[in-house]
C-alpha cells in the first residue's frame, strides 16, 4: 500500500492544456474589430501591512540614519539623518536633525539642517535652524528661523550645481 496514491489521475495535469489555447481568431460574426484587451491581472499585494499612508516615508524621532536616502515620493524626518536626502518633498520636523544636503522639489524645515538645501520651494519655519546655503526658486522664511548661509535663487537656472536636484 503506497502512501501516495499514484493511481489517482491528477486532475491538475489535464487542466492547463484546456486553458492554454485562447480563441485566437476573432469570431467572424462579430463585425466590430475587437481590440484585444489585455486582461487585467489583478495581483493583490500580499503585504500584511495596512496601506496607511501610501509611499510616504517617516523617519520617526527614535530613528537615526547614517547614509543616503533617496525616494521618488515624500519623506518626513523627525529623527536624525547623517547623509544626503533626496525626495520629491522633504519635511524636516521640529526636533529633527539632518547633517548633509537636502534635495527636493519642496523642502519644509522646522528642525536643523547642517548642509545645503536645494529645492524649488523652500519653507523655513520659525523653529528652523539652517547652517548652510539654500538654493531655491521660491522661499518663505518665518520669523524665528535661524540661517547661517547664503540664499541663492538659482534653483533650476544652471545645472552646474552638482546636478543635485534631479528634478528637471
Amino acid at each position, binding site marked *: 500500500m503506497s502512501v501516495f496514491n499514484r493511481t489517482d489521475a491528477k486532475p491538475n495535469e489535464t487542466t492547463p492544456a484546456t486553458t492554454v489555447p485562447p480563441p485566437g481568431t476573432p469570431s467572424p460574426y462579430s463585425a466590430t474589430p475587437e481590440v484585444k484587451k489585455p486582461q487585467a491581472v489583478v495581483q493583490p499585494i500580499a503585504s500584511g501591512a495596512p496601506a496607511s499612508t501610501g509611499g510616504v516615508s517617516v523617519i520617526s524621532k527614535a530613528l537615526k540614519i*547614517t547614509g543616503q536616502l533617496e525616494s*521618488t515620493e515624500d*519623506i518626513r524626518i523627525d*529623527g536624525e539623518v547623517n547623509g544626503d536626502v533626496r525626495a520629491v518633498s522633504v519635511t524636516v520636523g521640529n526636533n529633527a536633525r539632518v547633517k548633509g544636503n537636502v534635495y527636493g522639489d519642496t523642502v519644509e524645515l522646522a528642525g536643523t539642517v547642517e548642509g545645503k538645501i536645494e529645492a524649488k520651494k523652500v519653507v523655513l519655519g520659525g523653529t528652523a535652524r539652517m547652517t548652510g546655503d539654500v538654493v531655491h526658486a521660491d522661499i518663505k522664511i518665518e520669523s524665528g528661523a535661524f540661517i547661517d548661509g547664503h540664499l541663492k535663487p538659482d534653483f533650476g537656472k544652471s545645472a552646474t550645481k552638482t546636478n543635485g536636484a534631479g528634478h528637471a
Partner: protein
Amino acid sequence: MSAAPPKAVFTKPQNGNGAALPVSKLGKAIRVDGELETDGELHIQGVVTGRINAGTLVIAGDGYVEGDVVAREVRVDGRLNGRVFAVNVTLAKSANVTGRVFHNSVTVEQGARIDARMPWRPPSYFETLDQLPETKS
C-alpha cells in the same frame, strides 16, 4: 554629541516602553544606503542596503534589505539578503531570505523561500551581542 559612547549592538528593551516609540516607515519608493538605528519599530517597504539596528523590524512584502539586521523582533514578508540577529524571527510565506538567521525562536510559514543557515542561540547571546561575529558568507 561627537563622542558617541560605545553603543551596544543589540538594543535592549529599556524600561519596556519600546511600543510607545513612534513607528518609522520607509515607503515603497525609498532607497537607503547606510546604517539605521532605532529602539522602536521600523517598517521597510523600500530598499535598504546596510546595517539595521531596531527594536522591531518588519520587512514588508515589497521591502528588500541587504545587510546585517540586529533586532529584538524581526518579521520578514519581503526579501532579505544578509544576516539576522534577533530573539524572535518570523518568516512569512512571502518571505525570501538568503544568509544567516541567528535566533532564539523562529517561525517559518509555509511557502517561505529560505536559503539560509538558521543557528539557534540562547537569549543571553543576544543580550551580550556587542560585536557582530564574523561569518563566512
